[in-house]
């Protein structure tokens, strides 16, 4: 099970600095939630870990720098915020795409590839959808299918970019509960970006706050999610209610608007 270390991570896109020296340590088997205001560079951080954008700095996964895309894809599985769903593609074929890092691009599917895909489909209660087109599914079903593709990669690290956007409350919980269950079952390391701070506090072990291109605060939810920190970095006026299972972040009465 690999840990992930990023040091001195710098990314500039089109001349604009997005990340300016990110330091990140994620232990094997840990679930880290990355929070931050819009434009803080959360997605960019995930993309640099994935290796899909140019970056400076050092990224080690399980102690190794993995330069070849195929090597990374065997260790890191990615669930994008808005996945591209190809028209006419069936659920089973979409999930089979997750086997690419193992199969290579020229070889035909092996029996193992098919077995893994079927196993993942049944684990995520998607067996009945296998012959449906991905585009014909609802948002919640679709999110599970994309997760299934990531699991078919049999990677030890799951990178989730806003996995709950576009889902209603029940489906948000379903997806995150599912990830939590899979993490325990398969010993996955999870790095997720989340907008909903209460959800970020409820799921996962640790929260890292990304702002101005750096990780400005990292630790247990109660340490990171304070009214002052949120006011400073999100420009939001909130009240924190500390519940036994984590802090709840609620907007304060709208003084800010009246003022």
């Amino acid at each position: 099970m690999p840990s992930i270390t990023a040091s001195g991570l710098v990314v500039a896109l089109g001349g604009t600095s997005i990340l300016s020296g990110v330091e990140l340590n994620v232990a094997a088997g840990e679930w880290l939630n990355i929070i931050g205001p819009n434009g803080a560079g959360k997605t960019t951080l995930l993309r640099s870990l994935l290796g899909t954008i140019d970056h400076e700095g050092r990224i080690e996964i399980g102690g190794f720098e993995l330069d070849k895309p195929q090597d990374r894809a065997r260790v890191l599985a990615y669930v994008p915020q808005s996945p591209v769903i190809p028209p006419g593609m069936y659920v089973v074929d979409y999930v089979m795409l997750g086997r690419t890092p193992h199969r290579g691009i020229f070889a035909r599917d092996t029996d193992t590839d098919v077995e893994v895909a079927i196993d993942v489909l049944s684990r995520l209660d998607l067996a009945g959808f296998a012959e449906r087109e991905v585009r014909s599914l609802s948002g919640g079903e679709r999110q599970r299918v994309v997760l299934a593709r990531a699991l078919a990669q049999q990677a030890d690290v799951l990178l989730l970019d806003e996995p709950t956007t576009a889902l209603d409350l029940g489906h948000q919980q379903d997806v995150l509960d599912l990830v939590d269950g899979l993490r325990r079952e398969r010993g996955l390391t999870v790095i997720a970006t989340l907008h909903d701070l209460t959800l970020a506090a409820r799921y996962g072990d640790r929260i890292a706050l990304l702002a101005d291109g750096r990780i400005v605060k990292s630790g247990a939810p109660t340490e990171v999610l304070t009214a002052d920190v949120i006011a400073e970095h999100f420009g939001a006026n909130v009240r924190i209610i500390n519940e036994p299972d984590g802090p709840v972040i609620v907007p304060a009465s709208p003084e800010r608007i009246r003022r």
Partner: protein
Amino acid sequence: MTIEPARLRAGTLAAGFAVLLVAVVAGLGLGPVGIAPQAVLYALVDALPGVSADSGLSSIHEAIVQEVRLPRVVLGLLVGATLSVSGAAYQGAFRNPLVDPYLLGVAAGAGLGATIAITQNLGDGSGFTDLVPLSAFAGALFAVALSYGAGYIGGRSTASLVLAGVAVASFLTACQTYVLQANSDAFREVYSWILGRVATSGWSEPLLLLPYFVVAVAVMLRYRRALDILAVGDEEAQALGIDPRRVRIHVVVAASLGAAAAVSVSGLIGFVGIIVPHVVRLSFGTSYRVLIPLSILFGGAFMVLADLAARTLVEPAELPIGVVTAFLGAPFFVVVLRMSRREVW
């Protein structure tokens, strides 16, 4: 319940070959001299090296099948198959349904090359030594290289490559128009070249095209699974461990080479590269594992039948094949579009 990933099923492949065989037999048997399908099949087997079969035909009729019609049918098959599979591959590489193999200027470049050769009287119509197809081929490859160069300057994205292709095509078409205006006596000959034909003088045209066909088709078949991965976009494809730019350039170079060779022997036959892949998608699904092989078979069959129509509809005159592919192809496409319930793009 069994769950099976997309693949080309034996029955579908057999159906593709059957359609192609029917088209070939019709192409060989129909014309001013009608020859029965059974005799055509025997003559076809007899034409294979080292095999002899008695077709029961007179030597003149056998010569019509083997020496007049067969090279032409084979050329039509190769041209149609190449243009269709190149169109399918381009659509996959650019993830765009409206793309055809002429996107990066293959047609405009070939048109300019052919126009220069024709206006300079370089053409001798003699097959292997004829400079018109050679010049067209050079023009087509030049256009693709120019598009890639311009697209690279424009920022290496797929969109900038597409736009560069549009610019290069317009530029070369303007050059071609200028050359033609300056040599208006060649107007008729150039115009007839542009409208396309699959006429042959013996086996030289099919043999010219064959090596490019083999290479281009082999590359595109090899990349059929990669094109399915590319369908999720560059970023996700990269996250799945492949290099999308590399896949794209290999596929596009192979498809352009094939298309360039096809248009240089047959002229600018339009529509095939768009219509055939879409008919296959609507009928058999969108996976490139199925689409690439079937585009070859159905593209070949479609062109053989279009050429049959081109040479028989207004006998003894011939229609330009580019007119036939669009005139018959467009309504046929609308019917398929109407009948299919699939969402393919």
